[in-house]
């Protein structure tokens, strides 16, 4: 291991850890095994860390102890008290820490080994530092956007793609120069600085609705940075864990971009923030929507036997998941069956809606994916759309001019009645008109989703009692 002392026992500990990590991911194939898998993964991590502390030739434990204690306290605090609605922010922050840790290890390794470094290690270190710092600032930007510290709207400028591609190429050139002559430390630190810059500039143009893709991609980069660390240190468990994380993030971003009908190349080059065009024909059909009162909506809901709920980011913003579940229970008490239709890109990260509904005690066998439920809308009495927009826009199917044309969406308009909960009639950042809102069978109920749902619940219970 490049000058470090490698004990065979340590290698064995890393093997155990690697197996545990794979079992942890395997556990996630079903919610019934997932918790046990996670515990196995944590055990593997413990074995690897304890093994390293004892067997890796460490001579000074003071700063290590400080880091482990401070990190554990912060990590535990961030996990125990953070509300589930803040999960995308939480995940963005953890990518940020992961990227920084990998990058700093790379800097230390380069600083320590100096001119004695070989070309291969140099290549790995260069990648590690570039990807690590890119993930660090990129995730910070994503966090800022999710938290509302930076505008969630896409920020675009002229020649943006050209400059991003130029910077990627510059990083590649730096890497090649470093591999040719590892002793040029200026180039190494320039590469790190470039990573920091690319992270900022690549995420800045991205709009809030594209966050699921970005977060997945940053997940992948954090993993690749870890894998590069493994190459530089000659450490197999790092390579394996990094490859697993990298693959996972990559697969998720592919799934997300597919669910938005974007090509993966489009995603990789950060062009996705720009696709959103300016609103066309403002004030057009918006005047014809069917504004409904709470009483009208309650009447439809109580008369319905089959109900599908379609949640979107608006549910998270309004923290309405508990109210959604209470309404569903009231309707079930009324004899209706309630299902939830979850779009892959609903919310701000993969699986966002599932976690929120699980938090509100919605049984997961009531949650259905796009493909599994899309045929059922035509047999459904009422569909309740809670803060979702693009994923229920029929323009994706029948308007070739629409920016979201081709994106797989729910056939919500086929259900007998549709109730849409929406904050206001603004078209939002993307500025896309939604034809669903002007259909004759659609009722729009404007206002805060949680407040409206509470009124629905009261109304439904009243009718049931009457």
């Amino acid at each position, binding site marked *: 291991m490049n000058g470090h002392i490698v004990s065979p026992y340590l290698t064995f500990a890393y093997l155990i850890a690697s197996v545990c990590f*794979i079992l942890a991911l395997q556990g996630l194939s079903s919610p019934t095994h997932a918790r046990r898998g996670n515990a196995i993964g944590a055990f593997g991590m413990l074995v690897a860390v304890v093994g390293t502390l004892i067997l890796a030739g460490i*001579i000074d434990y003071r700063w290590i102890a400080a880091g482990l204690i401070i990190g554990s306290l912060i990590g535990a605090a961030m996990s125990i008290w953070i509300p589930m609605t803040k999960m995308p922010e939480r995940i963005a922050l953890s990518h940020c820490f992961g990227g920084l840790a990998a990058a700093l290890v790379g800097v230390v390794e380069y600083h320590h080994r100096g001119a004695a470094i070989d070309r291969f290690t140099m290549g790995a270190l260069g990648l590690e530092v570039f990807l690590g710092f890119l993930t660090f600032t990129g995730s910070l930007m994503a966090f800022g956007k999710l938290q509302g510290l930076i505008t969630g709207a896409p920020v675009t400028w002229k020649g943006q793609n050209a400059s991003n591609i130029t910077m990627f190429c510059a990083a590649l050139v730096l890497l090649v120069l470093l591999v040719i002559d590892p002793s040029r430390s200026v180039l190494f630190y320039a590469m790190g600085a470039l990573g920091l810059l690319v992270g900022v500039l690549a995420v800045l143009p991205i709009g809030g609705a594209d966050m699921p893709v970005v977060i997945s991609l940053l997940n992948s980069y954090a993993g690749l940075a870890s894998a590069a660390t493994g190459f530089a240190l*000659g450490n197999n468990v790092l390579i394996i864990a990094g490859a*697993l994380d990298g693959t996972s993030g990559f697969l998720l971003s592919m799934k997300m971009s597919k669910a938005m009908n974007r090509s993966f190349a489009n995603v990789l080059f950060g062009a996705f923030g720009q696709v959103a065009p300016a609103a066309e024909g403002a004030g057009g059909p918006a005047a014809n929507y069917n504004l409904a009162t709470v009483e009208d909506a309650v009447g439809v809901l109580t008369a319905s036997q089959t109900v599908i709920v379609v949640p979107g980011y608006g549910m998270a913003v309004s923290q309405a998941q508990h109210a959604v579940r209470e309404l569903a229970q009231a309707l079930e008490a009324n004899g209706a069956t309630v299902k939830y239709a979850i779009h892959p890109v609903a919310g701000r990260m993969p699986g966002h809606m599932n976690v929120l509904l699980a938090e509100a005690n919605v049984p997961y066998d009531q949650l259905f994916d796009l493909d599994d439920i899309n045929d059922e809308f035509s047999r459904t009495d009422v569909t309740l759309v809670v803060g979702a927009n693009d994923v229920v826009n029929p323009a994706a199917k029948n308007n070739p001019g629409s920016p979201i044309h081709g994106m797989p969406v729910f056939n919500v308009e086929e259900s007998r009645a549709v109730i849409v909960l929406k904050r206001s009639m603004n078209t939002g950042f993307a500025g896309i008109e939604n034809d669903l809102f002007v259909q004759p069978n659609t009722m729009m109920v404007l206002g805060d989703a949680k407040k409206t749902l509470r009124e629905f619940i009261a109304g439904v219970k009243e009718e049931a009692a009457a």
Partner: protein
Amino acid sequence: MANELLFGLFIFVLAGFLGHYVIEKVPPLLHTPLMAGTNAISGISLVGSLVAAGSGWGWTATLLGFIAVTCATINTVGGFLITDRMLKMFKRRGGKG
């Protein structure tokens, strides 16, 4: 050195394939816990941080290593805890996990 590179690539590519097959089986229901869990796992860079912080390579290495240990520990401890907290919430009808 070329051998070491090839051996590392070997492991990387095979682990990537394995990851692909295992992760393809994760339902969309659990995509957020998947992300949190892989985050915790990639916090394994902690072992590299430990060596950087504790090998007596001078104060720069110790300081940067200390920051790296802190960040990586946040991710491992926090990652496994929050994944567990999320997974605990997923229940079938009738309250059974």
